[in-house]
């Protein structure tokens, strides 16, 4: 059978405003005790008046523009009604038929994925399910939540993962959302169905995919499950399925996802007129986005496409990189190599953000300069960087203290080389018989004796000369 897969995504992102969507409660609830960031509005008390957060509207317009959407003149909020304890009011304030952005697109690895809509709603309370009861923490309720809905243009689990990855980077560049999936700040649901020999089958909604790899694994599992069912002649049903960490999807037969939400216009919030001047102002303030950043890093800065891709897809690293460039001291390609290599290694190990780490851009550049000018070897440089991360001290200071300056003095290298030759007569004979690869071994011996400080090129030349 010839199979095709059809996937559409709904991505929810909490916006990084300071206050909630319709009240002044703080959005900084991550490490707070339950129910300490709540007020009568987000508790859904009778008689309260929600008021829309101006910044949240701006962030949503900016995202919609970055995703090439059209921004209609008028938009409004609607009530989405359902009964579940994560909703204080019995309805969620959302947007139904007049979203803030419509009809956009995003290119993923050369393929254009249509964006159906971008709209704004409020996040719901967090539920903790215990066996005998459910506990409700309202802190999250009312956090501005932006939803990006794609057209069903995605045809593989890989594409789905790439889409969410790219979208997350765009949100980070715009500065409108952290995009942190582990903390639940970015969440993704997918609709997936298959076609077999051109015939379509019912679609399944997959929820709870809370990492990029989770998205891939869930959709890959679901694609396979649906294909196998069709091959075996089993009946597929339209349903909602959850995804477990064991990598399987399972049917969620609960009624909490009743699809009859009886939307109607939110009477407490007057409609919004999105003034063209406002929209154009926001458009002109959009920062450089990942794709054009990448292009510029290749064309103007001279990075390889590979380096540019890796650097531009990590916003904090990219910011750090660009500060390094202002130092004017070191070659961009070398900075990129260090950032993507030992620097990233250290950052990941320490679990910090480049902007918060002790090694400031000018300090890294100083280190790179020491290596580039041959004063210390690359291997020593890596060790020195490790120490800089530990102590926050400068490269020069560490190098002086540790005495790791590279030995470029020919006499010094020659003395050590002679010693190595006299101690390795077997290797020397092999070399003279034509086994030239023994040279690498001998260079290694010189390095060992000098704690890696001998200049490798000079060492190799000196040894070759002595062995003639």
């Amino acid at each position, binding site marked *: 059978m010839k199979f095709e897969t059809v996937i559409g995504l709904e991505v929810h992102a909490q916006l990084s*405003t*300071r*206050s909630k969507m319709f*009240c*002044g*409660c*703080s959005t900084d609830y991550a490490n707070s*005790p*339950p*129910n*300490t*960031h*709540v*007020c*009568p509005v987000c*508790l859904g008390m009778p008689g309260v008046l929600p*008021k*829309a*957060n*101006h*910044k*949240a*509207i701006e962030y949503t317009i900016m995202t919609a523009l970055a995703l090439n959407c059209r921004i209609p003149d008028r938009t*409004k909020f609607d009530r989405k*009604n*359902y*009964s*579940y*304890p994560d909703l204080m009011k019995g309805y969620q304030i959302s947007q139904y038929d007049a979203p803030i952005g419509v009809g956009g697109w995003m290119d993923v690895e050369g393929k254009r994925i249509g964006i159906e809509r971008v709209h704004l709603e409020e996040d719901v309370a967090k*539920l*903790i*399910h*215990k*066996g*005998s*009861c*459910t*506990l*409700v*923490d*309202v802190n999250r309720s009312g956090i501005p939540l932006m939803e990006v809905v794609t057209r069903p243009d995605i045809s593989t689990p890989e594409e789905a993962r790439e889409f969410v990855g790219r979208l997350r980077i765009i949100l980070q560049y715009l500065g409108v959302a952290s995009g942190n999936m582990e903390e639940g700040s970015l969440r993704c649901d997918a609709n997936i169905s298959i076609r077999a020999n051109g015939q379509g089958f019912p679609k399944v909604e997959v929820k709870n995919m809370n990492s990029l790899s989770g998205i891939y694994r869930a959709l890959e599992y679901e694609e396979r499950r649906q294909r196998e069912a069709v091959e075996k002649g089993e009946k597929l049903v339209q349903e909602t399925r959850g995804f477990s960490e064991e990598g399987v999807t399972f049917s969620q037969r*609960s009624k*909490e996802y*009743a699809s*009859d939400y*009886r939307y109607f*216009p939110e*009477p407490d*919030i*007057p*409609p*919004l*007129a999105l003034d063209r001047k406002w929209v154009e102002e926001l458009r002109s303030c959009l920062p450089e986005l990942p794709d054009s950043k990448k292009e510029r890093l290749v064309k103007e800065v001279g990075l390889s496409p590979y380096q540019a891709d890796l650097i531009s897809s990590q916003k904090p690293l990219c910011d750090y990189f660009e500060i390094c460039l202002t130092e004017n001291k070191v070659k961009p390609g070398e900075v990129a190599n260090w950032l993507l290599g030992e620097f990233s290694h250290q950052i990941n190990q320490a679990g910090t953000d480049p902007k918060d780490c002790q090694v400031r851009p000018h300090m890294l550049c100083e280190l790179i300069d020491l290596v580039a000018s041959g004063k210390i070897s690359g291997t020593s440089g890596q060790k020195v960087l490790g120490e800089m991360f530990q102590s926050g001290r400068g490269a020069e200071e560490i190098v002086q203290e540790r005495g790791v300056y590279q030995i470029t003095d020919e006499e010094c290298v020659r003395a050590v080389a002679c010693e190595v030759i006299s101690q390795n007569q077997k290797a020397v004979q092999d070399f003279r018989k034509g086994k030239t690869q023994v040279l690498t071994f001998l260079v290694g011996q010189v390095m060992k004796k000098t704690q890696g400080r001998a200049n490798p090129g000079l060492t190799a030349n000196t040894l070759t000369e002595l062995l003639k």
Partner: protein
Amino acid sequence: MKLSPDEVRYVAELARMSLTSEEVERFARGLSSILDSFDMLTEVNTDGVPPTTHPLSLQNIFREDIREPSLTLTDVVANAPQKEGGFFKVKPVL
């Protein structure tokens, strides 16, 4: 417009209400007469009247993104029939 008992039961289920068959009959009658009243609106000629989503002529009522103090936990859970460790406690839903 006549609302059938099945429709009443469906709406009640969405609202998590359980109705006796007597209540279903009563609400079917009551809701039908409410819908009839709304039907009167369809008799009005609305050609040339722009659609409205809101009765007031207000628009763009925003608040700036400024934090304001929240309630104390004591006040938040004061009216809760059941609570546990600062959480509201409800019947299990999973």
